[in-house]
Each structure stands twice: as C-alpha cells, then as structure tokens.
C-alpha cells in the first residue's frame, strides 16, 4: 500500500472541514485521479500527503510511514521522497531550466556530475532537452509544466502527486502531460493526480476517486480500455 488514509478529518481554524472522515487506500504502482468540485477537498488531500498540512484527526500513512510521527524537523527529508507537480508550476524564473530541474538534487547533495547527467535524463523524458539553457519564462505554459514534471521526477521518487497539473493547459497539451505521467506509471511510479478535467480522465481510463464536501462519493476501478 502506498497511501492509506484512515478516518481522516482536516478542520481549519474557521471550523469548516476540508476533509471529513475520509478513508481510502492507493496501491503501489497505481495511477489514481482525484476529482470533485473546487472546495471538495482535492488539494487538501494532496497537502496532507505532502505534509504541508497535518490532519486534525485520523491517520495518513504514506509508504508505510505514519505522517503523524514525522517531526517538523524531518519534514524536508520526508518531502524529498515525493515528487510534486503544481498547477502554477512553481518554477524559479531567476535561473535556467536545467538549474530548476537540478534543484532537488542540489538539496539532496548529489554531486555536480551526477546531477548534470540526471537533469539531462529527466529533461529528455519530458522532451525538453533542447531547452535546458533557456529561462523558464521564455517557455510556453505546457513546456513550463513539463519542466515542473522533470523537476518532480529527477530524484526518481516512487510517489508523484500532482495538483491540477493541466489546469492551465489546452486539451492537446493536457493529453501530452498525461501521456508523460502514464509513462512514469508504466515504470512503477505511483501517481495521485487531482483534476477536474473529467473528459481527460475518461480518456485515460485510470482509477478515480471523487470527493464532495471532503467525503468519498465515488471510487472507480481502472478501466483497461485506454490505450
């Protein structure tokens, strides 16, 4: 089991519950979409997994580790094991693409030569090797998102979480991003992707979790029709 939530509730200081009594599990090697209207708790679910938020009650277990037991000091080391992709890319525009992708390796203390090799491999996987020296600002939204994905996978995490990764992209670019995700899934990476793009999710034929008011409403198993 890669991710397991056990009766998890997240209540914000105002009193409203973003997640209420949620129980679910995601197997290793799965590619799962989280859907639901905005405010349904998709983002909060991902943030609980990334330890940006802590649950008010219940257990979040990721890769066999109960996040409740991860001390504040250990959060950075915990996060380094998870690849994260964001709707707004969260790239740094004061440095070229290659340095953006290298950042997780620099944080992990990987040697220069090894890092350079891995950055090129990651950029090659998202088809942007030829743009490694450019500033991300000069790239299109789709390309920027692919840089974000390269950065998320450069440390070869076993779990990748993505919050609305195609939120700002047109259908063609969205499909391209999804195909990249699919390729990672094929080599064993577990993916959890929050999205409201139902048409795209149908095309992908992956497992789907639908949330409403912080509760699980639909759980669909993988549909192998997708090719």
């Amino acid at each position, binding site marked *: 089991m890669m991710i397991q939530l056990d009766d998890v509730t997240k209540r914000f200081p105002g009193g409203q519950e973003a997640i209420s009594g949620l129980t679910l599990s995601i197997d290793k090697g799965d590619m799962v979409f989280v859907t639901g209207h905005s405010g349904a708790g998709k983002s909060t679910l991902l943030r609980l997994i990334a330890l940006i938020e802590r649950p008010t009650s219940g257990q979040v277990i990721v890769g066999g580790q109960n996040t409740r037991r991860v001390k504040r000091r250990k959060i950075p080391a915990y996060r380094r094991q998870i690849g994260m992709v964001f709707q707004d890319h969260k790239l740094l525009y004061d440095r070229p693409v290659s340095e953006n992708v290298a950042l997780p390796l620099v*944080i992990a203390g990987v040697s220069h030569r090894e890092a350079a090799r891995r950055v090129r491999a990651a950029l090659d996987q998202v088809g942007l090797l030829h743009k490694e020296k450019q500033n991300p600002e000069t790239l299109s939204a789709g390309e920027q998102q692919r840089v974000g994905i390269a950065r998320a996978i450069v440390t070869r995490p076993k779990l990748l979480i993505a919050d609305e990764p195609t939120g700002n992209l047109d259908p063609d670019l969205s499909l391209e991003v999804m195909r990249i995700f699919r390729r990672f899934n094929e080599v064993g990476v577990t993916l959890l992707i929050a999205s409201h793009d139902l048409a795209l999710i149908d095309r992908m034929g992956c497992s789907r979790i639908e949330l409403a008011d912080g509760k699980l409403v639909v759980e669909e198993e993988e549909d192998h029709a997708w090719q």
Partner: protein
Amino acid sequence: MAVTRHSDAVAPVRSAGALSTWFTRHVSTSIGSLGRLFRQPFASLMIILVIAVTLAIPAALNLVIKNARSVSDGWDNALDFSVYLQRGLSESEAQGLARLIQQRADVESVQLVTASEALLEFKQQSGFGEALDQLSENPLPHTLVVRPSPANTSQSMILLQEELGNLPEADVVQVDTEWVQRFHAILDIVKQAIAIAAALLGVAIIVIIGNTIRLDIQNRREEIEVTKLIGASNAFVRRPFLWSGFWYGLFGSSLALGLVQYGLFLLEQPVARLAGLYQSGVSVLALTLAESLSLLGIGVLLGLVGSWFAAARHMRRIEPR
C-alpha cells in the same frame, strides 16, 4: 518506500562522501551569494561602506590611543630633575657638584643654572622685573637640571631621585611625573569609552546586516517557499543568507582596514614634521598583523551574527502554503 531513510527514495543517488559534499555545497553557495552581491553593486557597496565606516572609527580611535600611549611612555623616562641647591653654595662648588653627578652612569647630562641666570630669566618672564630690582640679594639658589639616561627604569629613577635628594648640597629635588600619570589615567578612560562605543557600533552593524538580510529574504520569499516545498531544510535555505552576511562583514572590514591605513598614510608626513620639530624619533604606530586580522575577524563575526538573527527569525515563518 521506506520513509524513515530519505536516501531510499532517491536510492540511486551516489553521495560523494559526506565531507566533500558539505564542502562543495558551501563553496557553490558562497560563490552564489557573492554573485548576488555583485549583481546589485550599488546597494551592496552602500552597505559595505556603512559597515566599513562604522568599523573604521573605533579602530582608528584605538590607534590614536595606542600612539598617544607609546609617545607618553617615552616621556616617563625622559623627565628632568631640578635639584635646587642649598643657598650659600658658591658657583664653583655648584660646578664641582655638577661634574660629580655627570659621572654617574644613570645620568645623561647635567646643566647648571646659576642663581643669577635664574633671576635674569625670572625677571624677563615674570614681569616683576622692577619689583625684583628692589631686592638686596638674589633669593634664588643655584639649580642643577639633571637629565637621567634613557636606560633608566621607573624604579632606578626613584632611586636616583632619592640619592640626589640625600646629597648634603641639595635642598629640594623636584620631578613632575604626576601629569604623566594623569595623562595615562585619562587615556585609560578614553580607551574604555572607545570600547563601549565600539560595542554599540558593533550592535549597529549587526542590525544593519540583519535588516539587509531580512529584506533579501522578503524579496526571495517565493524562492524559499518553493525550495522548502521540494524538500529543502531550514539549514539549506539559510545557508546563502549566512554567506551574504559573511561577505558583507568581510568586505566591510577589509574596506575599514583600508580606510585606517589610508588615514595613517595621510598622517605620516605631518607627524614626521612634528617629530622633526621636537627632534624626537617619534613615528606613527600602524595596526599590527594581529590587530588587522582581528578587525577582519570581528567584521566577519558581526556579519554572520546579523544574518543568523535575520535568517533564524524570518526563515521559520516562511512555510509553503
């Protein structure tokens, strides 16, 4: 996925020895911070200048004290004794005594000021000339001005003073060391005052650097958030700011050193001229190597402390949202 050991998640990462990784990281971070300083040359220069002036003032004042000390230490042993002889002693007896004292090893020279010479001098300088003319006899004694040899210690000076006083021909031996001691006491007080001022200026430097780093952190808030989001520790995000503080401190104190040396260079000629007038071998004492290095060290330390305060205070608050 074994979450407890983060190296598992990035399992294929070959770490090139903990120490060399640590070293390489610091080298590249320090160069990165240096680059940032140079990319905003005007702002950086302003801060460095403020630090330099703030450090140079107490350093220069300390140097002034040091020089005043060394000059006045010289005076201690270059004091003349005035030996007032018994009245009624003849001029030739006084001359004989002068020759006798002259032969002592601890005496450099002896000069006889006869009673009539002293009276003449007194008449000219006091303005009581006519009143003194009314006196039937000269009230002044012959005087020997004894200059001790420079080899004397302060103890042998006291001994010499006693021995001169014990001479049967001597009436009073006068030596004015009190003002030198007073001068030294004043120097000590000024030195203390400078130390207090220097400590306050040090606090000012910490605040200046801390504030600069704080602004820098605010400007790079987004970058800090993103790096924390992808797993950077507080230590990792703090490192470039500590290096900025280090560079500010190092450049500031180097410039302070330069300012002090330049000041000395400007003073060299006037001091030489003054020394020439007094026919003394006085020359300006510069900062020693140890003093220069401690000035640099203090600058770097203040830079690090300032940036540490700012980083520790503001870094924790910046968490990914």
